[in-house]
């Protein structure tokens, strides 16, 4: 149940993000193309960072579950 509501929250947030993405992209394209397209490099670095942060978040989540399991057993 708890997982379910979490998932719905995540899905609705993702949906909202995807919905505004095209208009955001259209506005940002000119900005990202300015100064020799330097901001697209910033976007690439941001993606790498988000990927690593996502990995850390997942590991954190899994460790918390394990910790709770250990706590319950004691």
């Amino acid at each position, binding site marked *: 149940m708890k997982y379910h509501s979490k998932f719905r929250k995540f899905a609705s947030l993702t949906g909202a993000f995807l919905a505004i993405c095209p208009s955001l992209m259209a506005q940002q394209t000119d900005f990202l193309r300015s100064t020799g397209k330097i901001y697209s490099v910033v976007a690439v670095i941001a993606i790498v960072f988000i990927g690593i942060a996502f990995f850390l978040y997942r*590991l954190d989540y899994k460790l918390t579950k394990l910790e709770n399991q250990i706590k319950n057993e004691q």
Partner: protein
Amino acid sequence: MSERINIKGMWWKGLGVVLFLYVIVGGMMIPLKPGILSIQPGNAVNGDTVKLEVTGYNTHFLSGGDLRTWLKLDSSHFIQAFQIQATGETMCKATFAIPSSMASYTGVQPLTLILDNEVDGYSIQPNAIFLAINDSLSTGEGWDSSIDEPLHAMGQIRFPYRNILHETIRNTFFHIALWFAMFLLLLAGLWHAVMYLRQGLPQQDIQSAAYHKVAILFGLLGIATGSVWAKFTWNTFWTTDVKLNMTAVAMLIYLAYLILRNTIADEDKRARVSAGYSIFAFIALIPLVFVIPRLTDSLHPGNGGNPALGGEDLDNTLRLFFYPSILALTLLGNWMATLLIRYEKIREKMFYHS
């Protein structure tokens, strides 16, 4: 059973962080070489006097000393601008009297623009202007056979200026290095898979799986960063480029590895099947990523007959950051994998004890 964690064994994690910081800071701070952004108008007819409006990038047309420019037809036909006027550091107007005799050329011919001053060195723009040739004499009169004065070279450490790429050449340190790091991590995963098949220790399966998971994450990030890079250079998030599609197939094969692991409940069976599958996936990866893209045309450098990782696409200034970036991302990936391994070992221990 499990090894103790050694605090002194931290050094490579620090090295990874420091190197990645060096790559981000240095890779973003070093400017590009001066280059030519645009030239107007884009065409002319032989015999014309054309006034070209040149827009430069990172150039010093006003303060850079004696500014000279040539149009080049081929290696023995040049014309120098008879008048050149800088209207700003990045703007200048060059007037050329294009001869009416065009050697043996007919039809439409592209001319290359060469621009030179003391501070910026020389910049070259191929296909700067297209020349429509009408009734030309074949004498080659009016052209110089060479550039008489020597061109200047840019002495400072600068990244190469490439048309279309511009500043995005810096993505070399992130997008390409990610793929190299992914490949090294997959090799580590493969090594542990082979060791599992030889010795059958459960921790070897855990190690193999962890390296594969981090490598797959890096692969997905590689596709995402490549997609963004493509949007700003090839103007689309995804093309039918052979390397893109083959890499996508390779990634799907590796995603199937994750699904495979999740579907088998029995631990020994899961370890054996996934070790065998990872060997198959690696063998499939080699032709998909390294062989097939080289057999046909590809937008990626190093494929379809282009020289791989050389020339202006990866010169020595880029290597200064590219190789450290591969090392940094591999070390960070290794760190991530060891965290996963430690987590899985604790979990396994718990299940054995309970």
